[in-house]
């Protein structure tokens, strides 16, 4: 079901589509709740990020501003490292662009589910795209099997992750010198653990499992030979090509899933 999960009947769930969002608050809370594993996994990383910022000579205001405005863990880690090394501002900004290119793919992957929304909604949603919110939201949209993804759910997810990321970053800057780096205790394992727990329910057939193994191994190899987060992009593209190739060799038992872009419902409660 997982990777072919978009074959919904295309009917709007009351409160899940439409401008009014009667179930808005419930969706928002559901997003917050489903983000809990990643809230846990955010703690050690944002704390370490704040600590690193302090060591690089950033003030608490600067640490907080970076967390609040950039809101992208890897880019911040690399940015802070470059600041400490005295790199030029242009170099630092360029590295943020490169290290975050994976968000292009995540935005592309989310877009079929969200393209029914007005552009101004997309502009707001885009700010909250991080690996964590992407993982939670795309899982939900695939599982729901509806062509229209619920944006309020995404906002709920973003709200809780954002508050934790910014506040714990500042706390790491303030207390890091006393407490030390939580990752040295192995707490950084919370990150892969959270991603493991969210990917497992999606492994419902052998093809999904094959894509998982192949892209995982591809990432492992690509990381050895490419800089930054390039390996994430390479592995994701490679994995989706493998998925399509597997479809050609072994057609799905059930009719091929329709692409989620077209809303086949024909005039639901929009």
């Amino acid at each position, binding site marked *: 079901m997982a990777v072919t999960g978009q074959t919904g009947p295309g009917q709007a769930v009351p409160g899940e589509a439409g401008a009014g969002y009667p179930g808005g608050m419930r969706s928002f809370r559901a997003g917050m709740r489903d983000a809990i594993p990643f809230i*846990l996994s955010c703690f050690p990383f944002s704390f370490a990020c704040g600590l690193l910022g302090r060591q690089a000579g950033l003030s608490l205001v600067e640490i907080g*501003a970076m967390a609040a405005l950039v809101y992208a863990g890897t880019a911040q880690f690399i940015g802070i490292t470059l600041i400490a090394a005295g790199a030029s501002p242009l170099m630092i900004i360029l590295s943020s662009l490169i290290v975050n290119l994976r968000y292009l793919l995540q935005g*592309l992957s989310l877009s*079929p589910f969200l*393209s029914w929304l007005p552009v101004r909604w997309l502009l707001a949603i885009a700010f909250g795209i991080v690996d964590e919110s992407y993982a939670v939201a*795309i899982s939900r949209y695939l599982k729901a099997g509806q062509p229209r993804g619920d944006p309020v759910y995404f906002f709920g997810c973003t709200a809780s992750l954002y508050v934790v990321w910014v506040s714990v970053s500042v706390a790491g800057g303030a207390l890091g010198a006393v407490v030390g780096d939580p990752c040295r205790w192995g707490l950084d394992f919370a990150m892969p*653990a959270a991603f*493991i727990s969210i990917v497992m329910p999606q492994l419902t057939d052998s093809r999904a499992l094959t894509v998982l193994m192949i892209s995982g191994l591809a990432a492992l190899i690509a990381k050895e030979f490419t800089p930054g987060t390039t390996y994430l992009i390479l592995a994701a593209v490679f*994995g989706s*090509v493998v998925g399509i190739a597997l479809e050609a060799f072994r057609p799905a038992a059930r009719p091929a899933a329709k692409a989620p872009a077209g809303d086949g419902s024909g005039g639901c409660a929009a």
Partner: protein
Amino acid sequence: MRPTMFLIILGMAVATYLTRVTLLVFGKRVNFPPLFLRSLRYIPIAMLSAIIFPAVLAPQGAIYISAKNPYLLAALATVVAVRLTKNSVVGIVVGMGLILLLRIWM
């Protein structure tokens, strides 16, 4: 806040936002071929496993596939716990507990 630092942070923020917004919004405008859209369904699993595998099998950067790799053992414990309980928080707590124990023992 120092002016240079403010500019750096602002530049990082703009660069990051551009990567997030571009294809999310363009996906609305462009009619992609069906094969391409079908391939998008595999991106979630591929991207998530690309995050997981190196973090577990190369936690310090170098590939470390060994029964002594605490991240690998903890990942297996998490997989088993999620499988049995269907609860992600339990899975994380079990994995974290094991890794802390291994830190004490090893």
